């Protein structure tokens, strides 16, 4: 009964644009596409047995976090669950590192009370939301690609047939043939595709909010993919490079976090408007993305051909492409956001005071830096409410030595430290 209603709704949304708008509005505010983030924490303490990827056991609570398709993907790719969990944790840590000095510091809520890992902020369209989506998507891509290279995922085979690949490697100069490496250079391919299927499952509506998520997810993945680096070793007579062996290497996740943070600072505000604002462009495949980004940056000259290409795409796949849209910037003077840019829909609040409706903690009780004039300085952090300082004795591990073989011994040092906290 319920199913037929839902299906009918979907059909209607496809046909009538007006209804789709209403539907989008209806969905706004109770957005639920991202419960899978919960696997990062749901596994604790030992629901996920770490060292046995094949025997990965999930309890029912974490299974309920996933959609059908996601569950199927996990079933079909043994070992991938651990990678996703690792990826989300990595993203979480990176987010908290990048935002450690800001009023919103990527706080996570106590997961066991249910709901979303990052709290209600993901229901809105803030810059911060954009970052969360991008970094988690990047985390999954990164972790799955790495797991693939490590051979943890059984279904991720290293396709030795594809050795020379041009467009994927964006660091190399154009026109230069890439070095051959039969190994797992293409694990990023699997990671990218997997993350796209897994992460974007929820975003199937046509609301701008979902388009924003799709865009930001894609941006996160693009950052991982484009940061892939070739690493080479040279052999030859006396330091020359006659025999050169290269392979692709995933970037450090920290650098991805840094890049995404830069994009966060320069994120584009896109329009909340009619669905006509979703101008379509072709984004056929990740291989085309670089080209696409250039096209976007060059302006609209390539639009007509792109549309033709999309028409062909229609006929071939017999369905519409979820990724073929172009967001419109709020300020028409500005250029449209590129594939690697983050987009947001509403201006962020001040994050000064706790706002349970938005899931914001506020900065009460946060530590701040008295001498800094940046965001972590006490004036800005505490929103001019003032702060109090007190002396605290901090103990840290220190004088660590390595003992042969193989343990590290440390002693504990305590020292006095002045701590400022916001009122």
């Amino acid at each position, binding site marked *: 009964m319920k199913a037929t209603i839902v299906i009918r709704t979907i059909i209607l949304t496809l046909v009538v644009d007006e209804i789709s708008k209403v539907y989008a509005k209806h969905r706004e505010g109770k957005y639920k596409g991202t419960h899978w983030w919960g696997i990062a924490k749901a596994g604790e303490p030992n629901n996920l047995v770490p060292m046995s990827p094949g025997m990965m056991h999930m309890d029912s609570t974490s299974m309920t976090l996933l959609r059908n398709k996601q569950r199927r993907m996990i079933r079909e790719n043994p070992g991938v669950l651990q990678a996703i969990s690792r990826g989300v944790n990595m993203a979480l840590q990176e987010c908290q590192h990048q935002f450690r000095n800001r009023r919103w510091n990527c*706080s996570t809520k106590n997961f066991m009370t249910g709901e979303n890992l990052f709290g*209600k902020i993901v229901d809105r369209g803030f810059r911060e939301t954009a970052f969360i989506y991008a970094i988690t998507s990047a985390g999954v891509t990164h972790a799955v690609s790495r797991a693939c290279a490590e051979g943890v995922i059984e279904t991720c085979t290293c396709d030795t047939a594809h050795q020379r690949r041009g467009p994927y490697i964006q660091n190399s100069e154009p026109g230069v043939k890439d070095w051959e490496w*039969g190994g797992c250079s293409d694990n990023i391919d699997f990671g990218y595709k997997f993350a796209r299927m897994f992460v974007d499952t929820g975003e199937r509506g046509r609301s701008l909010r979902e388009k924003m998520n799709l865009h930001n997810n894609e941006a996160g993945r693009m950052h991982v993919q484009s940061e892939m680096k070739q690493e080479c070793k040279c052999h*030859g007579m006396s330091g020359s490079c*006659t025999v050169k*062996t290269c392979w692709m290497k995933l970037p450090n996740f920290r650098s991805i976090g840094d890049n995404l943070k830069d994009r966060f600072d320069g994120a584009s505000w896109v329009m909340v408007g009619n669905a006509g604002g979703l101008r379509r462009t072709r984004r056929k495949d990740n291989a085309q993305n670089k080209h696409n980004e250039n096209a976007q940056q060059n302006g609209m000259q390539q639009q007509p051909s792109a549309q033709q290409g999309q028409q062909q795409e229609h006929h071939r796949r017999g369905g519409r492409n979820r990724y073929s849209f172009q967001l419109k910037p709020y300020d028409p003077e500005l250029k449209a956001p590129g594939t690697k840019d983050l987009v947001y829909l509403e201006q962020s609040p001040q994050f000064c005071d706790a706002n349970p409706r938005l899931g914001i903690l506020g900065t009460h009780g946060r530590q701040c830096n008295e001498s800094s004039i940046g965001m972590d300085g006490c004036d800005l952090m505490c929103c001019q409410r003032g702060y109090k300082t007190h002396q605290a004795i901090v103990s840290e591990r220190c004088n660590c030595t390595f003992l042969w073989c193989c343990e590290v011994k440390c002693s504990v040092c305590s020292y006095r430290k002045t701590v400022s906290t916001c009122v």
Partner: protein
Amino acid sequence: MDQQQLSLSYGGNEYTEDYFYNSPADYYDLYDDAIDGQNQDEQSFWSHLSFYQLCTQCVLPAIWSTCNLLGTTLILCIFFRLFVVVGNKIRSIPKAVFHIVCTICGVLPIILFYEDGDLFQLLLQIVIFPMFCYTLSIICLLTLKQYTSIIFSTVILLTLLYRECFSDDTKWRKTKSCHMLMSLKAMAVLFDLRSNELHKFPPVYQYTGYMLCAGTIYLGPFLTFQEYKNALFTPVYWNTSKVFNVIRKIIISLFCFVMSICLLDWLLNKHMYIDENRNTITNIFLLMYKQALEFRTGHYFISYMSTVFAMVCGYNTEILVTLPMAIEWPQSLLNVVIYWNVPMHHWLKKYIFEEVLKYGKKNKHTNKILAVGATYLVSSLLHGLEVRLSAVLLSLALYTYVEHRLRTKLASKFLKTYSYYSKNYHNSKKYISTNNCTWFIWIINLIFTILNIIHLAYLGSVMDVSVVNSVRSYYDSFEPWRRVSYFSHFIILFMYLISIIL
């Protein structure tokens, strides 16, 4: 269906309850944990793998990717050899054809596996350089009465230096070894001509054939013109043991290659727990040793491969290029210097060291020092005065001198019956076990060996086989040495002081 499942999974959760944090403290605990966890470093790429995974994902692909180039070269070498054998049976083939075939077999693998696009420029570089050498030799021979070879060598070395300083770095690194080898050959021809080992200057086709001969064009080893000519017209007898020898060398070579590419990284990361950022003595030493060993195994790979090619082409059937055991268990640095690259060593010795000795007149000692200095200078210039290589070469020269001096003094002072080394009839230095080989001598030798291992790890740690895209600054190049505050150089200084006192 999917949609329905969604409503089942999340049904009833209407976000009614507000977020409730037990206390802010909980949250900050989490925050601190996260900060702690960030100290983890990206480990080496291969270090997480099991052995089986390493094999499938690093070893096999690595071998496979080099087999394209090396396999083709090997096939062309075999083809060349067969052509020579068949050609000598049919007497009507003119001799020039042999040289031309040799040239084609030599250049073909480079052309086929040249990845950097601009093929024309590569051809230009590889074909122009022998022509340049040829014309320059002719000009030198015709215009100059004496010092022909010396002036020629100077010009060639300066050309190499110019290329090193002013040409595109990646492309130059690719063809550098070809140019080095061609320079060696061109200089050797003129020196041989002067010393009447070669009676007349070879015609163009022979000269080009010698410069670009199959198998040795990009990996070495250095051949004399006589060896090259012999290969073309004297038969080589093959038997099973020779074939097995070739196969054994190929296996050793590939094993060294795999060691250099991933095995060492994997072994030391996984089983020794070394870590870039930990500052303990063992850790730092292992890191340096790993770096140096990667460089050395890479060199063995190249050397063994070049031996294989030279053997298959029939230039020199019992050629010795390198002796890994003499370097890995360095009983003296002198051995290391000699057995690092034997043909190159002979070249330097014959054409530079002994030539300079000839020119000297009176004081024998200063003359020797001059000769050593010249040898060092030429060998650095051959490498284009590359900063790190030159520093390593200079250090090695000093180390060898100090070690030699200290050990001869020790031997003469304390043990009359013990001699540091003896010259046997091959005129190569070899260690003798003295008649009364006591534990005392044994321990002294062991101490020197261990010291040498440390020195070699230290010296090799600046040689980096991995390609860094950005240009390394002078400061960065010696980072590994600075990290250990140049201790090895201080040890040598200390040893030198002892040798003065003794």
